[in-house]
C-alpha cells in the first residue's frame, strides 16, 4: 500500500494524503511524509534515538502535535529523522521512538514552518485510515 502522496491544493505550501492500515502506521507514514520534505530520508542514518510522548484532545489534534513536536526537534536537537517507531497510540496519546542523524546541508530539504489546520482530516475508510495534512513552507 502507498504510504503517502503529495497532492495539489496549496499554491505556496505542501499538502499530502497519508495512508495506514492502523493508527500506528498512519502516524508513522505521516512523519515519513513530513521528513521527506525536510530532508533526504533515504540517506539519513539511524545514529541517534529520541523517545517522544505526545498528547492531544482528539486524533487530529494528536496528529498536529506529533508532527509539530518533530519539527521542533529539528531545531532544538539539530537532527534529521528517517525512522519512526510508534510504540503505543490511542486517540489522546502517543509514545514513539524516532531515529535520525545530525542535520547537514548535504541531506537538507526545505524548512517546514508549521502544520496547519487547513482541511486537516483523519478518516477511516473501510479498514484503513487516511489523513489529509497541509504544511506551511
Amino acid at each position: 500500500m502507498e504510504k503517502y502522496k503529495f497532492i495539489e491544493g496549496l499554491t505556496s505550501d505542501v499538502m499530502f494524503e497519508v495512508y495506514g492500515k492502523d493508527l500506528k502506521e498512519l502516524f508513522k507514514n505521516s512523519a515519513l511524509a513530513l521528513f521527506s520534505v525536510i530532508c533526504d530520508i533515504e540517506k539519513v542514518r539511524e545514529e541517534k534515538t529520541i523517545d517522544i510522548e505526545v498528547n492531544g484532545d482528539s486524533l487530529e489534534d494528536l496528529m498536529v502535535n506529533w508532527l509539530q513536536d518533530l519539527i521542533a526537534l529539528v531545531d532544538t536537537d539539530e537532527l534529521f529523522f528517517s525512522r519512526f517507531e510508534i510504540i503505543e497510540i490511542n486517540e489522546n496519546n502517543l509514545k514513539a521512538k524516532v531515529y535520525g542523524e545530525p542535520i547537514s546541508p548535504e541531506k537538507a530539504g526545505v524548512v517546514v514552518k508549521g502544520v496547519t489546520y487547513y482541511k486537516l482530516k483523519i478518516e477511516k475508510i473501510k479498514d484503513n485510515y487516511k489523513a489529509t495534512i497541509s504544511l506551511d513552507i
Partner: protein
Amino acid sequence: MKEKIQKINDYEWLLPKTAREGMNVGAKIIANKAILDAIEDSAVQQLTNVACLPGIVEPVIGLPDMHFGYGLPMGAVSAFDSEKGIISAGLCGFDINCGINSIRTNLTVKEVKEKLKELVPALFNAIPCGVGSKGKLRLNYDELNEVMSRGVNWAVENGYGAKEDIKNTEENGCMPGADPSKVSDLAKKRGLPQLGTLGAGNHFLEIQKVSDIYDKEYAKKLGIVDKDQVLIMVHCGSRGFGHQIATDYLKIQERAVKKYNIWIPDRQLVCAPINSGEGQDYYKAMKCAVNYSFTNRLVMTQWIRETFEKVFKKSWEDMDMQTVYAICHNVVKLDKIKGREYYVHRKGATRAFPELPVIVAGTMGTASYICKGTELALDKTFGSSCHGSGRAMSRHAALRQFRGEKVNEELKQKGIIGKAGNWKSFAEEAPGCYKDVEQVVDSVHNAGISLKVVRMKPLGVLKG
C-alpha cells in the same frame, strides 16, 4: 465567487458583502485586469471567509500578489475594530515578521560583477542557509530575552549593525510591549541557536543592480542615486522561534473560539477577542517574534557587510553599506489610520504609510522594486501594499516542471550567479512559478497605494 466581483475602476474590484451568507463586510481586490483574471476563485472565496469574522472593518483587502493559501490568501489585509474585533494567530501566519531588508552600496555593477564568483560563495559561507545549516551565533536565555524585548537595539549594542540601521527599520526595529513571559520554553529553545540564519523556502539573499529610477528625489533620500549602483536584499523571518509562537497560539486560540463562542468558517482562522487574555497574550508574544526577526535580519546584514569587506578590501562604511529600509510583511499591528485605531493583520502584505518605503521582492530571475507609500493607501488599504510577485504555481507542480540545475543554468545565461543548499529549492522557486512582478507593481502603482521609486534586477542569488 469571481462572477460576483464588480468593477470599481481599472485597478480596484469589489466583492460585495452580499456575495455569500455570513459576510460582515465586503472585500476589495487591488489588481489590473490581467492579474484579476488569473487569481484563483478559491483565493477570492478565502477573502470572504475573513469577511465573516467578528469586528472586521470594511473591506477585507486582496492585493495583486494574492494567491490561495491555507485559511486565507497570502497577499491579504484585514483590519479589526480595536474594541470589538479579534486578533488571530492564523491570520498572521507561522512566519511572524517575515520581511525584507534592503541594503545599499556605492559599488558599481562592474566592480561587483568582477568579484561575483568569489562574493556569492563567500556570502554562502558567512550566512547559514537552509534547514541543514547550524547557526553561528548561540544565544543564552538572557540574551534571547534582550532580543525579544529590545530587538535591534540589542544587536547594535553587541556589534551587529549601527545606530543608522535602527531608524531605517519599521518600528525602529523593536515593537514596544513585547513580553517574553508569554513565549513558551519550547519557542525559546528553538530561538537560541537560530539568530542569524536565513532559513529556506522562498527566503533568499540577493545582490542586485539598480535598473531604473522612477522618483529621483525620493530615491536620493534612500541613498540610491545611480543606475549603476549595487543593492543587496535579504528576505527571511523569525525562524523556528516565530513558527513555534504561532503554533502555540493557534492551539490557544482554537480553544478561545470555543470559549468565546466565535464562529469561524475555516479552522485555520482561529482567533480570540482583542481584549481577552488569549488575544493580548498572543499580541505580546507575537511582538517578541517581530523583534527577533528584525534582529535576525540585522545580524545577517552585518555578516554581509563583513563579507563584502573581505572581498572588496574596504570598510563597509567606505562602501556606504547602509540599510535602505527594513520592513515586515507578516504581522499584526495596532495602527492609527485617519484618527481610528485598528488591529491590522498583514499576511504577505507590506505597510505603505505615506512617504515610507515599500519593498517588493520579485523572483530570482526577475526585478524587485522599492516603492513609497501614499495617503491613498490609508484611504483604500489600511496603509498597505503588496509584498512580492506572488506565487502562481504550486511547489508540487514546480518540481514536475523545473529542474534546479537547469534553472540555475538559465540564470547563468542571464548573467545571474546562483547558489543553493539544495537545487530542489531552485526548482520550487523558479521564476516561472510566480506572477509577473511588473503587472503586480503596475497594479499597486496605478491604484495609487504605492508608487514606483526604484527597480532592481538580480546579479547574484543565494537560497537555502
